[in-house]
């Protein structure tokens, strides 16, 4: 590939371009001024103080954390149970079933939002927490499915048989042999689905209500009607939590996982 100075400059520019807006938001959150500006000028933590003093913002943070934790737990569990059967039983239409599991991935998010709103309406969950949770589970199941299925496929069934032939009972084998071998896949699924749910905004826009709003949706609403730097402070909290989970993933699994999972992210 022709590799010139121009090419190198472009690459360097893109690698600066990607983190740039995030760095700018984080830095401008420390401004002492009453409006958003960069460079921030005199530094202060007043906008963090304002965030911590606001029950509304804190409530949204709690909603987002609980929602992401529950969505991650449910979708990982559901995908795990399903994948266990899927990888070990032969059944007609297995390929079709997998396509169905990955189906939510091929919908534009704005359309998905309307679908989920209709679904929440069927249960009377419009603007309520269960509606948000159900939508987030459906959206994150595909992301849990792939790492779990691939770790199940890599699992050597003979290790289980060896344990059985040595006299271990099935449940013991499952707990002491199968689960530990599947741990990387399960950890990936949990953390990945957590991040996706925690940062999700487009579909959530359709599902929040006056009593329940996620942090990203509240940020979105506030950007539209105020320029207060408190948004930068809260955004920084959101960024910090995302960084934390990514670092955790890097430590536990390695970041190459995103590249690998990307290759398998082929809609239908």
């Amino acid at each position: 590939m022709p590799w010139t100075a121009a090419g190198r400059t472009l690459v360097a520019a893109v690698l600066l371009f990607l983190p740039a807006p995030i760095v700018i938001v984080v830095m401008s959150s420390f401004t002492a001024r009453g409006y958003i500006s960069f460079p921030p000028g005199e530094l202060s933590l007043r906008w963090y103080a304002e965030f911590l003093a606001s029950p509304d913002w804190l409530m949204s943070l709690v909603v987002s954390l609980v929602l992401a934790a529950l969505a991650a737990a449910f979708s990982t569990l559901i995908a795990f149970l399903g994948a266990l059967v899927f990888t070990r039983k032969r059944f007609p239409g297995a390929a079709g079933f997998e396509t169905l599991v990955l189906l939510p991935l091929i919908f534009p998010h704005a359309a998905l939002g309307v679908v989920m709103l209709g679904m929440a309406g069927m249960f009377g969950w419009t603007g309520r927490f269960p509606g948000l949770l159900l939508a987030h589970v459906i959206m994150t199941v595909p992301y849990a499915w792939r790492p779990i299925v691939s770790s199940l496929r890599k699992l050597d069934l003979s290790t289980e048989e060896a344990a059985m032939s040595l006299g271990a009972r099935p449940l013991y084998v499952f707990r002491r042999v199968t689960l530990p071998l599947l741990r990387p896949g399960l950890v990936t699924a949990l953390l990945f689905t957590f991040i996706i749910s925690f940062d999700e905004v487009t579909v959530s826009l359709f599902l929040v209500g006056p009593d329940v709003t996620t942090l990203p949706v509240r940020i979105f609403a506030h950007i539209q009607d105020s320029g207060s730097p408190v948004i930068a402070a809260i955004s920084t909290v959101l960024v910090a939590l995302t960084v934390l989970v990514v670092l955790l993933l890097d430590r536990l699994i390695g970041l190459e996982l995103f590249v690998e999972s990307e290759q398998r992210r082929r809609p239908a």
Partner: protein
Amino acid sequence: MRFGRLAWLLMLPLAAVLGLFLVSLGALVWSSFAGADGVPKLDLYARFFARRDYVDVLVRTLWVAGLTTLVSLAIGYPVAWAVARHKGRRDWLLVLIILPWLVSVVVRTYGWIVILGNRGLLNAFLGWLGVVDTPLKLMFNTTGIVIGLVHVFCPFMILAILAVFLHLERSLEEASMSLGAGPWQTFRKVIWPLSLPGVISGTMIVYLMATGAIVTPLLLGGLRDRMLGTQIYQEMFQVFDFPRAATMAVILTATALAVVLPLGMLERRVSRNLKGAS
């Protein structure tokens, strides 16, 4: 481990959730065809296409999504290549791509408001340099939307292409070069064809995501330069017209799939041919 018949029960929660999703999809499509007296009609679609402003929104959506995809490919491809061929540890480069990708869209778009606004960073800088007298209009127009969408979605492109590059042996280029091919020829005849599966899957994802975006077009495009996503959001929460929003959602999905499904087939074919050739 052996599974008895009861094992099928384990699949039940997943099947239930998927079933629920399918039913909701069906309900949405149905409501987009609903006539006044419960007989399926094409009224809502006819009314959509009869309105000039809606058709404009549809065209703008396709155009913005297409442009976003092209720009993402143009800047993402060299980056994927550079990361794949980087000597030494790739971790830091991956962090620079993956971290921004996982940070919420709202936060990233907010950053662009700070940069692109009339009194934003970029205009302040240009004014300080004396390049411009009046601030450039970088926001509340299509330029702003495309900049924002490229930023939000081009990591998908980079990662999709990188996934292919990481499996490409360096010896391939060396072989091609040692057989007398120049760098350009090596790229055209060896690297580009081998990278096609990544290019196609990246194109699919970026296009799909860009057509369905709401937050970035609404914040950076304003109320005038609408896209289908923002239009759906407005019909839903300002006009409270669910059937019309449902109709638009179906149109949006159809236009996205009209591009994505053929690309998916193409990708499978290309991958198969590559496997067959090697």
